[in-house]
């Protein structure tokens, strides 16, 4: 079939068009620059974060040590104490930022996040269940963990992770069914999330009655997230999962954009909406489960990161996917570093700080009452 597009004389249309495309391109480039600046900022923050602490180093010195030019004690501080925690913050922050974006975009709900939908609490409950009833938390010398003293030793990292995933999925399934079955408002879905959070929290407390003291300490650790106890094995698992999920949704960024125009329109543009939503929520649960199993409940981070990103680069998922990850990383890194400096012993969990940032934003969004 032949297409004619002769509404304007060709030269006029072209001159207008050429100008528009270049102005559009300039706007897009500006937003990619913001993204690049954010990436640079995060790297600088990471260097600074490695430098500060009880044993002070200069960021330049840190760079030298990272490049293998350090002396014994300094290298130990950097590689064994600070670096794992900082890389963990970056990876976990990225993962939670992405999963927050996914829940918001796929459910088309600006209030959605792993924390507000009850997925985090579900994961924590699953982890607690594994520790107390499946013996996964027994202190033993054959532990997978080998790093410094504060570590909890699990005889089975897999049981904890698997059960955390089951818990997060349980919350996700309920939310997806509710959001699907009835025309529920965004806030109503969040109320269901709140109900599930308290259910899982009560479950976690109930479990503690059957636990030993060591197990209780381990379980309590989950209620306020912390990246202080990190090891490379966990970091690697989370990093691989996060990378794969991010790549998948970068691949499907146009589908996520199409969903912004409404479900029917997305379908008419060739998006398999149901498959995208189910798979996306499944992958988001996976990231939340891993992050929570390793680091506990980090409140509101998944809510904060996408909203800050929308302010920075707009609603386009081409930029929003990487930006939500980056903002998540930067926020968690900042929260962890501040927590480390404010309390000398380095024991203020990041979950406390992210709550202080996230709860006001949540209230603001609730008042604004806008659909995504």
């Amino acid at each position, binding site marked *: *079939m*032949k*297409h*004619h*597009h*002769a*509404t*304007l004389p060709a030269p006029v*249309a072209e001159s*207008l*068009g050429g100008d*528009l*495309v270049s*102005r*559009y391109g300039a*706007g897009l480039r500006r937003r990619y620059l913001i993204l690049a600046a954010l990436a640079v900022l995060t790297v600088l923050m990471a260097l600074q974060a490695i430098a500060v602490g009880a044993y002070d180093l200069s960021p330049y010195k840190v760079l030298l040590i990272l490049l293998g030019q350090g002396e014994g004690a300094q290298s130990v501080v950097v590689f064994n104490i600070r670096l794992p925690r900082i890389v963990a913050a970056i990876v976990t922050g990225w993962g939670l930022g992405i999963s927050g974006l996914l829940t918001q975009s796929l459910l088309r709900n600006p209030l959605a996040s792993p924390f507000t939908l009850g997925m985090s609490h579900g994961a924590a409950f699953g982890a607690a269940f594994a520790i107390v009833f499946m013996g996964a938390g027994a202190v033993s010398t054959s532990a997978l963990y080998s790093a410094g003293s504060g570590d909890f030793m699990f005889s089975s990292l897999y049981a904890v992770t698997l059960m955390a995933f089951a818990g997060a999925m349980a919350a996700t399934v309920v939310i997806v069914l509710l959001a699907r079955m009835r025309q529920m408002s965004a806030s109503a879905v969040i109320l269901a999330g709140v109900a599930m959070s308290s259910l899982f929290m009560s479950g976690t407390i109930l479990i503690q009655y059957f636990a030993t003291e060591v197990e209780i300490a381990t379980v309590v650790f989950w209620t306020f997230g912390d990246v202080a106890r990190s090891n490379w094995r966990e970091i690697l698992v989370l990093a691989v999962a996060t990378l794969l999920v991010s790549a998948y949704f970068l691949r499907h960024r*146009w*589908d996520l*954009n*199409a969903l*912004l*125009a*409404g479900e*029917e*329109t997305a*379908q*008419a*543009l*060739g*998006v*398999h909406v149901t498959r995208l939503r189910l798979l996306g929520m499944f992958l988001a649960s996976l990231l939340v489960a891993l992050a929570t199993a390793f680091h506990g409940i980090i409140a509101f981070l998944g809510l904060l990161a996408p909203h800050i990103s*929308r302010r920075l680069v*707009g*609603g*386009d998922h081409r930029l929003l996917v990487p930006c939500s990850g980056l903002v998540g990383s930067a926020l968690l890194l900042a929260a962890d570093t501040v927590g480390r400096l404010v309390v000398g012993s380095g024991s203020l969990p990041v979950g406390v700080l992210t709550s202080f940032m996230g709860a006001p934003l949540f209230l603001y969004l609730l008042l604004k009452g806008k*659909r*995504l």
Partner: protein
Amino acid sequence: MTLEAKDLHFNYNGQPVLRGLNLSLEHGEITGILGVNGAGKSTLLRCLNRILRPQKGVVMVEDRDLSKLGGEQIARLIGYVAQSQEREPLSVFDAVLLGRKPHIKWQATSHDLEVVTRVLTQMGLEPLALRPVSSLSGGEAQKVVIARALAQEPHLLLLDEPTSNLDLRNQLEVMELLMQAVRDQGLGAAVCLHDINLALRYLDRIVLMKQGQVHALITPEELTADIIRQVYGVEAILAEVEGHRVVIPRSASPRKPARPATQYAT
């Protein structure tokens, strides 16, 4: 012929909505789909592009059986404008660029950007191109949605009440832009409408639906008071004003007689 639908059946929760409906659409023509609320107009449109899967029947577009095509292949054939519209948090340009989604492999190419620019110009949206969709008026936003469907470079357009939330001026503007696009590009088009006068003025053919079937397939000239009574249960006069046929409804006769006007005056 751009579309041919044969013997479409669709049940919703066990209730038949479409019962053996047949329809064909021609290149360069706009066909209106009219009928009372619940006659199955929107369902028909969604069955035609397989947002809904008809339980029985065949839809052929450009001689290809849609049930054998994937979502993106269908999206390259059919542009669809849904009834309820969302205001996406994107610029007008990006919102229309979404129409290129079925064609985009990994990144939008310069050809995609060209198509978007051409459609924006065609719809008169060029000055608004970099503004957020959320800042537009209802009429402008409706043009964005139609522009997105045109950016798909489809062979066929399906529009579900594209003028229902628009003021008089925007109704005329949108219909005229649509007509022009369909004529210029030789597209097929089906439009669900409630406004009979708009249909008489702009459409080439009119399908009147009743209880999930085609009650009448006519040209605007062939519409009679009888048909209106049969389809809508309304007594109406057909008049001609300055060369345009217009329908003037009198009363909803077969049900109750209208109450005296004094009861409304308070």
